[in-house]
């Protein structure tokens, strides 16, 4: 990986587009970027790290990683919405790649936190193929952990050796290519731990299994008890149902009887009414029976009044009456009236008188209309017969009803109702109990079924044994991996020590005092004195500069050792070195990588230092501020040899 162009847009102090061409050749592999303090060298350094590692590449201040908003150009943000990005064009394994990491921001008042839209976005374009996702691919090219040996701040690197940082040790292992083995061993250990946990879990499950078996047995007993109890309750309920039904029938019969009694009352009322009517009818009949004689002689009267006595007899009688009354001597037929004739005349006269009287009396009586009286009487008699029949019928019905009522004697209704209500209460209670128990039973049954299935499917013992076997295998393989890693480390350690020692003896002011640098088994760095005594690097010297020498040696050794072609970007390379060390370091830097970008301040490298590496310089740049504006840094190319 060799950088060709780096473009900063609204990143930190860099307002708008600022591009720096960092192309190198095998002969001219050094890029010098000069800048006074607070001009933007470190900003450029962090821009590279941001482009490659996103926010992880931003510096850590007081233990906290800085937010991307902090690195947006304030001037630009004060003017309008825009985009901040850093793009790096680089060449890698014959292909060109362009890495662009960007984030859009909103116009913000100066001095206030800048508002951004979402998270920083990474876009990798290439004329070759790029496997996705981009972040992983990019990390694979130059892992973040390793990057600290390629992109470093000269003022910070002494901490690599002053403190035995695990991250540094890890990075060293990674550079050596041991991390894969470590990872594999770690994965196996993790797997072993997981298997151990699984084993413990299974053992606990096994105990649980036994407990579950016991529980299942108890549950089955409980279920049986519940089912028996349900049966008992069903018997109680059925008994109560029968009792309720009996009561219902009796009450129904009672209702029938009540209905019959009501009907009988109605009949009795009807009977009473009829009796009143009969009484009235009897009174009426008693009156009308007074006409009985009259009615009986009705036919006689009809015959008398509808007949007429003989006119001849009447004439004879009239004539006889006149002859007698006038004391006539001679009859109208000129016959002398003797005693014989006189007696005949008297008889004629008498006969007429009686019949006339009877007729008159009969006529008067008949005018009183015996037929009408008979009709009235007959009507009342008919009524009487009808009433008598009706009352007989009603009485018969009353008698029948009374007999039925008598036959259907019933228990006391209140007792019946109480019995029925009690039965209903028992039914309800039993049904509630049955329902509750049924639910319990169903749940228990389901639980038993589930537990049974679980228990049947459980092959805990076999699993535990299998897990134990696997765990043992993991431990063996892991141990083998570690052994392999140790073997590998022992194999490569001497080469690495040689390279680091070489760098160290070239950089130190007193090469005669030291033999070099060696590594302990746990990657602790030790300084080897001439008398073969070994000092841990942290005890080598309290001086930051001395530590920086060891750190640079380590970086150089690792860079040489690794097969990775990555640029070295050194910010403040001389740091706290004395002039002698600075001179050595300047020379040394040009040889530690295929591309070395040195971000220095004028006091760090003298012209003679630069002159010493003149033929290695590809281009020289200066970081400046337009009008000394704090947010207007830019790159100015001073020298270009490529």
């Amino acid at each position: 990986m060799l950088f060709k162009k780096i473009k900063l847009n609204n990143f930190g102090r860099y307002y708008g587009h600022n591009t720096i061409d960092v192309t190198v050749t095998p002969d001219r592999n050094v890029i010098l970027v000069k800048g006074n303090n607070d001009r933007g060298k470190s900003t450029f350094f962090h821009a590279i790290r941001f482009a490659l590692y996103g926010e992880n590449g931003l510096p850590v201040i007081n233990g906290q990683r800085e937010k991307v908003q902090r690195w947006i150009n304030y001037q630009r943000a004060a003017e309008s919405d825009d985009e901040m990005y850093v793009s790096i064009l680089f060449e890698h394994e014959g292909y060109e790649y362009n890495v662009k990491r960007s984030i859009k921001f909103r116009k913000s008042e100066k001095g206030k936190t800048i508002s951004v839209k979402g998270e920083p976005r990474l876009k990798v374009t290439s004329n070759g193929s790029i496997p996705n996702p981009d972040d992983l691919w990019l990390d694979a090219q130059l892992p973040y952990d390793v990057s600290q040996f390629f992109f470093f701040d000269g003022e910070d690197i002494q901490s690599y050796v002053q403190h035995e940082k695990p991250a540094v040790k890890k990075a060293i292992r990674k550079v050596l290519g041991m991390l894969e083995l470590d990872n594999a061993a770690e994965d196996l250990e993790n797997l072993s731990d997981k298997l151990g946990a699984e084993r413990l879990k299974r053992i606990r499950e096994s105990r649980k299994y036994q407990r579950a078996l016991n529980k299942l047995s108890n549950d089955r007993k409980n279920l049986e008890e519940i089912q028996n109890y349900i049966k008992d309750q069903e018997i109680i309920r059925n008994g109560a149902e029968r009792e309720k039904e009996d009561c219902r029938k009796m009450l129904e019969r009672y209702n029938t009887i009540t209905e019959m009694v009501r009907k009988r009352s109605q009949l009795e009322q009807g009977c009473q009414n009829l009796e009143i009517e009969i009484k009235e009818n009897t009174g009426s009949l008693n009156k009308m029976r007074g006409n009985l004689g009259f009615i009986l002689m009705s036919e006689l009267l009809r015959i008398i009044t509808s007949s007429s006595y003989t006119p001849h007899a009447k004439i004879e009688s009239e004539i006889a009456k006149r002859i007698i009354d006038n004391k006539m001597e001679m009859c109208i037929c000129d016959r002398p009236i003797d005693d014989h004739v006189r007696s005949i005349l008297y008889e004629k006269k008498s006969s007429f008188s009686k019949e006339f009287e009877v007729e008159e009396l009969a006529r008067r009586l008949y005018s009183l209309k015996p037929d009408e009286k008979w009709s009235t009487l007959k009507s009342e008699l008919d009524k009487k017969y009808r009433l008598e029949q009706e009352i007989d019928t009603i009485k018969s019905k009353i008698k029948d009803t009374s007999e039925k009522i008598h036959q259907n004697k019933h228990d006391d209704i209140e007792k019946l109702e109480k019995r029925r209500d009690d039965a209903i209460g028992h039914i309800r209670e039993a049904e509630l109990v049955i329902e509750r128990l049924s639910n319990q039973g169903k749940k228990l049954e389901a639980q038993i079924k589930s537990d049974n299935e679980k228990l049947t499917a459980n092959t805990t013992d076999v699993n535990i044994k299998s897990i134990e076997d696997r765990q043992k295998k993991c431990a063996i393989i892991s141990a083998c991996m570690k052994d392999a890693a140790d073997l590998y480390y022992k194999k490569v350690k001497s080469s690495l020590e040689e390279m680091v020692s070489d760098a160290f003896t070239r950089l130190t002011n007193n090469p005669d005092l030291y033999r070099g640098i060696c590594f302990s088994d746990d990657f602790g760095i030790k300084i080897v004195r001439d008398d073969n005594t070994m000092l841990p690097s942290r005890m080598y010297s309290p001086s930051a500069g001395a530590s920086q020498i060891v750190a640079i040696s380590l970086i150089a050794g690792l860079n040489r050792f690794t097969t990775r072609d990555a640029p070295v970007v050194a910010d403040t390379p001389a740091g706290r070195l004395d002039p002698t060390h600075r001179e050595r370091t300047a020379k040394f830097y040009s040889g530690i990588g295929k591309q070395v970008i040195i971000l220095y301040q004028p006091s760090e490298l003298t012209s003679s230092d630069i002159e010493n590496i003149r033929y290695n310089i590809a281009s020289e740049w200066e970081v400046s501020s337009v009008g000394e504006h704090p947010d207007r840094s830019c790159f100015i190319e001073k020298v270009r040899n490529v």
Partner: protein
Amino acid sequence: MIENRPAHTIRTIIPNVYDKLVTEEELFLKKHHLFVAGLVYGMLYDKQYQKPPNSQYTDIVKLGAVGDKLTNEIINLVFAILDDRKGQSQTWSVMLRMADWGVSSLDDIYERHNNFTIPALVKVAQQRWPKRIKDLGLLSYHEP
């Protein structure tokens, strides 16, 4: 016509029957109503109650005291029919016996049927009168 009508008294030999049918059973409002019914019934059958020896008549009411016009008219008609102009007392005695026979017969019917069976009586009367009217000497009358 009964000429000394007010002096005549409705009497009976069977007062107990009157008491039973009128006073106790209340089948007639007044005793003279039962008397008239018995009279007509007796005349219809031309029967007279045979007075037992030592039996006494019991007065019911004097004719003059009967305010019922119909009763009087019937008694007058029966009297006119039965009267043979030989003596009113004799005719009245016949009427009393006929009435007792009739009352006694009605009582028998009532005893037997708990009823006077009036429709049957009327029917019998309708059948008997045409023949009976001839027996009574009312020969001038005939069916139209």
